């Protein structure tokens, strides 16, 4: 399988072509630096993203608190995670980095608050 990946490591935005199968990378071409190769390989095998969104609070004045995944989550699980987070309501007070959802969707990553309410 071949996949074109636009590198986001620096503003160059190289279009990198990765060839491989699953975990097995055959070739990486089009990158102009080593960091690009590392990025493209990871993006090919296991694309991950930090998920940021909001969670409802029980406070009328501040109805939302911003949250993030502590670590990047598998890209394909993002929408499933959103479904879970959408249903959560946190009790105030809540502080920066309080865990809001533990081990979201079995990913081993917590969803934590990024604000104080």
């Amino acid at each position, binding site marked *: 399988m071949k996949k074109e990946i636009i590198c986001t490591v620096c503003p160059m935005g190289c279009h990198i072509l990765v060839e491989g199968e699953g975990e097995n990378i055959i070739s990486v071409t089009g990158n102009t630096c080593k960091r690009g190769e590392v990025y493209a390989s990871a993006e090919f095998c296991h694309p991950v993203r930090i998920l940021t969104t909001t969670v409802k609070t029980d406070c009328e004045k501040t*109805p939302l608190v911003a949250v993030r995944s502590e670590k990047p989550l598998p890209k394909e699980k993002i929408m499933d995670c959103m479904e879970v987070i959408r249903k959560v309501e946190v009790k105030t007070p809540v502080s920066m980095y309080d865990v809001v959802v533990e081990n979201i969707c079995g990913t081993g990553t917590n969803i934590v608050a990024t604000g104080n309410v």
Partner: protein
Amino acid sequence: MMKTDVVVIGAGAVGCAIARELSKYDVDVIVVDKRDDVGGDASKSNSAIIHTGYDAAPGTLESQLVVAANPMYDQLTKELDIPFKRIGAVLPAFTDEQFEQLPAIKEKAFKNHVYDVEYLSKEEILAKEPELNPEVKGGLYIPRESLIDPFILVQALAENANENGVDFMLNTEVTGINVENGAIKSVETTSGTIETTYVVNAAALHCDDIAAMVGKADYKVVARRGQFYILDKNTSCKVQTIVLPIPTKITKGKLMCPTIHGNMLVGPTAEDLDDKVDTSVTTEGLNSIYADVSKMIPNVNLRDTITQYSGLRPNRNPEGLHVDVYDDLAGYVNLSGVRSTGLTLCVAMGKYVVEKLKEIGMNVSLKDDFKATRKGIPIFHEMSREEQENIIKEDPLYGTIVCRCETITEGEIMRAIHRPLGARTVDAVKRRVRAGMGRCQGGFCGPKVIEILARELNVPTEQINKNLDGSYMVVGKNK
């Protein structure tokens, strides 16, 4: 069934002026309008000028009413606390042909009983208006052409009428008029039937549709769209007066003038439309404004625009301002041909229509408890520091600035909502206290205004409209 003496259809400048005039008498009045707010269509998107009538067709009803109305504004705007400024207009001539037209224009003004039009030499006109194209040859000065806040004018007339007993039914469309034995019987609306003796059709753009309901539509209304630019208060090129072009046979042309609040207004176009709703702005229209106005004012900087809008003037075909009553339809007064001069002549029209109603049998006498004055919302940014200090002590919400561009406080917005005929929509707030009227066009204060309206009206935010039904601002709570 609701019962009244007079139904006025249309809550624009004319409808509200008639209502206010009627409110001096012992008569029950209901004003109906299909919009969310008083202020109509044409009355809220025009050039905001109180004309003298210098260029009207002499001897016409329009000439008579405009000329009579202009002097009324000094007292009216004091009584009703309406921003108003007599800044005067100049009419510059740039070509020999235009220059030769000046005596005829002055003479026409004279025939309209506008006696104070003056000639200006090149030096005089440039002294009054330094931004004019220096090729100007001279011109005319019309001292009593004036600026007004057109929103506040209509609100003030309506609020004062309301305080003196007139009822307003907004979001209410007239669907039919019932006639019995050659006389008005009742008006059918989307909010129910109103039994009434008199109907005044002041529906402007839609007055032909209303007239058709009683079989009196012997004319058509064509919407003539006028597009405008509003420029930032800080724009690099400002005019000091109302700069009017010398009209051609085809058009009155495009003008540039300050607004009462210190912005610059440039326009309008004049495009006849096939429908009565298309208040779009178009690239061609906006470009034509620059093409024309830059001939008079070469440095006009339309890049400093903070908004563009268009208004629809009701243009009667055949032309002419008419106030008609009918032998075979007792109790019905039909207004048609009220065009851009309507904003000026509305107050004279109020008196004229009341006289008409008396002529056709309305037997009324003046009330002794009529309250002639109305107080506007105290404007924070116009106050001295000491006054600001005092009003915050009285009402701490005056210490919370909601609209940064125009420095409008929550106190002012609260008053806009909680006064007679108070604001129910985002635009209605804007037209009362100018929140969202500035250079960010509600980018910062819009979200806050939605919240305040929802809180004060005790409805969910998705029920807050920009203006008309269906113009919802948000779809509701996200989670």
